[in-house]
């Protein structure tokens, strides 16, 4: 207490009655979270303004009500500007003074955010007190150019076999997760965060989960499960719940990108998940209507494409000269009845480096995750895939493609020849091996070993329908009796030579054991 009094004394004695000249405006009207402001002739787009509640009232009132109310300039008009109120809009009144802050909307970034839950302005909302040691960064700025980037060459393991084997993601990539509601999009994202725990700490990506327009209870559950599994130790959650103003839901992804870029610029790796951009687009549409922008296709403002492209452009793998850090983005889009040809899905598909397409049909049939492998791609990730994965992924992709053809054929023919029957069994086995329940991401060496076993016939003694339990037994066996082989795969990132021989030896032993 004494030190605070001392500081106040120091500060007061340092007060000089200087005259400060600044540009201010006056609120013409306010409503729906938007303020029309007279003046501010020199304001620029996305500049921050401050609605100053202290201007009219007494000093006492000003101190009682000291929470700043920020605004974001989004429309420049002839005789004033229109700004979105970022805060308690009920405190903004007609005739209120508005000050220019002379900076673009900025949020705090820094290591201190790790483990915290913040809102779209970077303010803590987890009740764990203020966040110290951060610096302000503008929420929007130019993305890195080609010269500052390097090709994607390090894998980002999701821990989900189907993805890491067939739709591999590299650090710095933008991979879309797309599908109807309730088909497991969020689950893939959260499992990917959980899986980073098995990465070596030095190269473990910092994860940023941005929840946009979600129910607060749902996000709270996610945070609790991340906490429980120790994943909050390397995770930041940015939340703009459905109950928050549209402006916050519009801004949250940019806040997430900005927070992630800070780590990238330190030469580290970061992963940001936008869950989901459909809701951000809806928030943007709502804001645009209030701002009286002309609506375009599906009533979205014409620049909604640009909104998503400038957000996703910020994912990058930086060149060595720039420190070699990366920001990987996993945007999520929710479709209606699997329609990926709607406006927002088409846009985001064209901006990303591939998509993981989840199908309600597959989900209902019990496939977990419900990935439509035939329509999912990753355009850059395979160059980052480990040799171990590459070795097994080609075979499983081929088997599954053949299986899909045969499956269609099967519907018409009743008696199958032995060869076809074998193929179908094998395809069913592969499909089963790729099944994976929620909350159980696997370290990549385990993924590779399991898929290696499946494609090399080590599970063939089981009935195809028993594959899942067989796989579980295999995992347990490897953990118990082949730890060193797993460690070798992890270290060499490959399955060949001695490592392959030891793995085969272990798998033979397993086959014998279960026979």
């Amino acid at each position, binding site marked *: 207490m004494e030190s605070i009094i001392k500081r*106040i004394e120091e500060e007061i004695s340092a007060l000089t009655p200087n005259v400060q000249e600044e540009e201010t405006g006056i609120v013409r009207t306010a409503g729906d979270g938007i303020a029309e402001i007279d003046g501010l002739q020199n304001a620029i787009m996305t500049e921050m303004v401050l609605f100053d509640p202290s201007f009219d009232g007494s000093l006492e009132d000003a101190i009682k009500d000291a929470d700043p109310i920020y605004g974001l300039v989004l429309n420049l008009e002839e005789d004033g500007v229109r700004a979105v109120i970022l805060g308690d809009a009920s405190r903004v009144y007609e005739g209120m003074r508005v000050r220019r802050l002379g900076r673009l909307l900025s949020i705090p970034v820094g290591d201190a955010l790790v483990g915290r839950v913040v809102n779209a302005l970077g303010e803590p909302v987890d009740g764990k007190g203020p966040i110290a040691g951060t610096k302000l960064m503008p929420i929007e700025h130019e993305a890195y150019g080609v010269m500052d980037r390097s090709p994607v060459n390090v894998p980002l393991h999701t821990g989900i076999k189907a993805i890491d084997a067939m739709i591999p993601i590299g650090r710095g990539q933008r991979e879309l997760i797309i599908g109807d509601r309730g088909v497991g999009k969020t689950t893939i994202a959260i499992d990917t965060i959980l899986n980073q725990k098995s990465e070596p700490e030095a190269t473990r990506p910092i994860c940023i989960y941005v929840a946009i327009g979600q129910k607060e209870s749902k996000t709270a559950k996610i945070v609790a499960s991340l906490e429980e599994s120790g994943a909050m130790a390397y995770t930041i959650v940015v939340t703009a719940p459905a109950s928050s103003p549209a402006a916050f839901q519009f801004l949250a992804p940019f806040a997430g990108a900005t927070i992630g870029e800070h780590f990238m610029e330190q030469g580290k790796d970061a992963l940001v998940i936008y869950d989901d951009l459909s809701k951000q687009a809806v928030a943007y549409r709502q804001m645009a209507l209030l701002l009286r922008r002309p609506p375009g296709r599906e009533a979205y403002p014409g620049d909604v494409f640009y909104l998503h492209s400038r957000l996703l452009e910020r994912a990058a793998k930086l060149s060595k000269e720039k420190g070699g850090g990366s920001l990987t983005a996993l945007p999520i889009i929710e479709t209606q009845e699997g329609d990926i040809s709607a406006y927002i899905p088409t846009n985001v598909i064209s901006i990303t480096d591939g998509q993981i397409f989840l199908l309600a049909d597959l989900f209902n049939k019990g496939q977990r995750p419900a990935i439509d492998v035939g329509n999912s791609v990753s355009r850059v990730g395979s160059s980052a895939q480990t040799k171990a994965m590459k070795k097994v992924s080609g075979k499983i992709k081929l088997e599954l493609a053949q299986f899909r053809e045969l499956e269609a054929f099967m519907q018409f023919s009743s008696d199958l020849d032995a060869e076809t029957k074998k193929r179908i069994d094998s395809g069913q086995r592969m499909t089963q091996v790729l099944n994976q329940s929620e909350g159980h991401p696997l370290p990549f060496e385990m993924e590779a070993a399991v898929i290696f076993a499946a494609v090399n016939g080590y599970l063939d003694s089981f009935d195809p329908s028993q594959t899942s339990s067989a796989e579980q037994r295999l995992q347990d066996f490897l953990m118990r009796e082949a730890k060193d082989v797993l460690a070798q795969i992890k270290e060499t990132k490959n399955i060949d030579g001695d490592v392959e021989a030891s793995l085969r030896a272990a798998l033979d032993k397993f086959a014998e054991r279960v026979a």
Partner: protein
Amino acid sequence: MTLARDYAQALVNAAHTAEKESTKAEPKKLVAQLVKHLETTGRMKLLPHIVRELGRLEAQEKKLAPQVEVAHQKDAAHALAAAAKHGIHANEARVNHTLVQGWRASSKGTLLDASAKRQLVELYKKVLTH
């Protein structure tokens, strides 16, 4: 009602120019011209809206007009002179006790704030957040 707003703004602009050039086009004449124009273009329905927009513009002008506030009457002369040095010319200073000490002046979009209130509020925030 942007059309009404445009008419109102045009009217005010014309009145201001007339004032500056002290031509014969007084407000009365301007209004007569406007009404005639609205009649010939069939837009008489706009008139009440234009009047409302004029009211809004007047309120805005008042708020944006040069004004000087002082915490205490005794500072008036000093404040008026200081504001004038910065290009804000007001005829008199209004007493506003909430300023605690000092003065502030504003005109159009410019604010000069040399009040203790502003500094104390800033100080308060600084002490709170550090």
